[in-house]
């Protein structure tokens, strides 16, 4: 296997684990969302690397679909965060633990 594919996959795993660390450790909801975006991008890098390795275009199609899903997730998630902020005026994720409105 080519060296650049190896490096890409190792980098992808590293970025994914760093994003997971951010989601677990940080408490600001927007920063948690950005860490989720980081994880999605790491998965995209793995898709692109495999598409290059196999000389197949399917990986790029999946990366495109992941990108669209990330855009939809950001739209809905930011709307939820805006709603929570307007209601509570709070920035700590631990205080937003109730499901009642």
């Amino acid at each position, binding site marked *: 296997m080519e060296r650049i594919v190896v490096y890409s996959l190792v980098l992808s795993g590293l970025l994914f684990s760093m994003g997971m*660390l951010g989601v677990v450790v940080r408490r600001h909801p927007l920063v948690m969302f950005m860490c989720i975006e980081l994880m999605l991008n790491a998965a995209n890098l793995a898709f692109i690397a495999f598409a290059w390795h196999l000389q197949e275009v399917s990986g790029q199609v999946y990366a495109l679909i992941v990108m669209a899903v990330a855009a939809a997730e950001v739209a809905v998630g930011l709307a939820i965060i805006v709603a929570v902020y307007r209601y509570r005026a709070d920035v700590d994720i631990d205080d937003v633990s109730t499901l009642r409105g």
Partner: protein
Amino acid sequence: MNGLELWVFVPVAVLAVIGAGGLVGARNPVHCALFLMLNLLSLAALFLILSAPLIAALQIIVYAGAIMVLFVFVILFFVRPGQVYTVSYSLPLMYSLGALLSVVALGVVLTALYQGGLFHPGVPVPPTAETPLDVAAPASLGVALFSRYLLPFELTSLLLLVAMLGAVVMARRVSREPAGGKRSPEGDS
């Protein structure tokens, strides 16, 4: 892959790791957004190296353009003057637990890659496509997107429509709710 592309690859990969580390470690959310933008741009460069120019352009347009603008807008929308960003955690062990979890995840990934024979060079890859097509050309991606992957593509557009409607509905309900009983301290209109 010749050596020149590796000489481009390694510094860009280091930039991507720096962006991710800054995203996890920075205290101010605006700095987090800027570090994430550094990470996204360097990943776009990596996509260019991996011969996916259309995905690289869409990465810059969609992520670094649209999504990050949305993030920065929402962050600046909720910054209060004199707000102190604390990086405090509910559990004192949270640093070490999170680090342990991410190290375990990285170890699982690397072990899977090693078991999959990734680090053994010279394994011949059977050609999957009958006719070798040019993966770097956006035309082949477009053809695949509109012939073989037409259903996922259309479902993606449906998903985007549903997400847009959901975001609009949530924003409307919030702006109408101050007329009701439950109140937040600011913004009576």
